[in-house]
């Protein structure tokens, strides 16, 4: 049976993003009966999140170059319940648009004071907060003169597999949105807007950093492709 289309997520087969051509499955996704799995074990066995893991500006001796920002918000499920204890992992380019990754060949400078990765666990209200620098735009070879809008990669990991999400957060007013196939792979404009953080005066710290607000909504714990599981 072919799965119902869900307009909020991109289709995997999206020719404007060239790398999908040999990687997107050609067969329709199947619907699973019943619930997806959930971990009963602790999410992180033996792994502790450091107190400063959320602060990408304090991982080296010096300060990274760039515009200092904070990104904060809540992880909620689609009923509006906070998702506490979710692992958020984040990675990004530096302020010049270069990743601290061996295969990033963009001739923009690396920053010895910026690795570009952070992580945290959401609090009881589902809240999270990162401190970082605003990433630069960078070129890629998808089409002639293609540039990615500034973005931060986010991964949300909870015990419920139905909630697993990897996405990208963008910045308001970016002039590069219209030519970016990854941003525009999200079919409807309202959903695309939910990938864009909001600049917030309240979250902006005077004389210190710009504040961006961004909430993340994941599926409910018991989300199943089918509404009813007759076996339960």
């Amino acid at each position, binding site marked *: 049976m072919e799965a*119902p289309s869900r307009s*909020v*997520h*991109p289709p*995997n087969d999206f020719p404007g993003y060239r*790398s*999908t*051509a*040999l*990687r*997107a*499955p*050609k*067969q329709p*996704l*199947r*619907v*699973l*009966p019943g*619930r*997806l*799995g959930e*971990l*009963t*074990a602790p999410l*992180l*066995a033996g*792994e502790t999140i450091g107190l400063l893991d959320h602060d990408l500006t304090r991982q080296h001796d010096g300060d990274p170059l760039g515009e200092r920002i904070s990104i904060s918000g809540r992880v909620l*499920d*689609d*009923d*509006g319940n906070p998702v506490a204890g979710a*692992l958020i*992992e984040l990675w990004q380019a530096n302020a010049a648009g270069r*990743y601290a*990754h061996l295969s*990033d060949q963009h001739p923009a400078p690396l920053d010895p004071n910026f690795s*570009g990765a952070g*992580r945290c666990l959401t609090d009881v209200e589902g809240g999270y907060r990162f401190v970082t620098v605003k990433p630069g735009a960078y070129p890629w070879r998808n089409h002639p003169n293609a540039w990615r809008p500034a973005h931060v*990669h986010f*991964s949300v*990991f909870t015990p419920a*597999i139905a909630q*697993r*999400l*990897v*996405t*990208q957060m963008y910045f308001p007013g970016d002039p590069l949105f219209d030519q970016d196939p*990854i*941003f525009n*792979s*999200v079919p409807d404009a*309202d*959903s695309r807007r*939910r*990938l864009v953080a909001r600049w917030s005066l309240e979250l902006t710290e005077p004389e210190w950093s710009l504040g961006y607000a961004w909430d993340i*909504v994941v*599926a409910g714990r018991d989300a199943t*492709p089918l509404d009813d599981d007759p*076996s339960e």
Partner: protein
Amino acid sequence: MTLPLTPSQTVGPFFRIGLSTTIGSHVIGEGMPGAIRISGQVLDGAGEPVPDALIETWQPEGAGRCATDEEGHFAIVTSKPQDGAANGAPHLDVSVFARGLLTRLVTRMFFPDESAANDADPVLRTLSPTERATLVAVREEGGLRFDIHLQGAGETVFFDR
């Protein structure tokens, strides 16, 4: 109240920066009783290895994560899930992330020594023998082998998220 979901986006080519260490490739230790090494290769529609994919396995006992190497290989050490018959035959939920995948792909890995349970499994039962074969690991020296074909001949069966 129903809030609209945050859309998925690709992990892109540089996810190792952020997704490398927090969750590891060993759900249980290699020498523990019941430990099984599951290895495989991720292949694209041209049959070429995918060197920048991330595999995550889920089962009640824990989650495993492994990025593919230059030949598209991954390996995860875990045990057979013990969650009883309620959820069908024992299986791992497997997610695949990669550059070129705008959403995660979800599949299931079943165990080759569970043929009776596999025959009765509500998911496997709905598949043709060819499709079913893509979801059952095969025995190999030192463990199990579970190759993932993203596209084309022998394409792995993937499920709606």
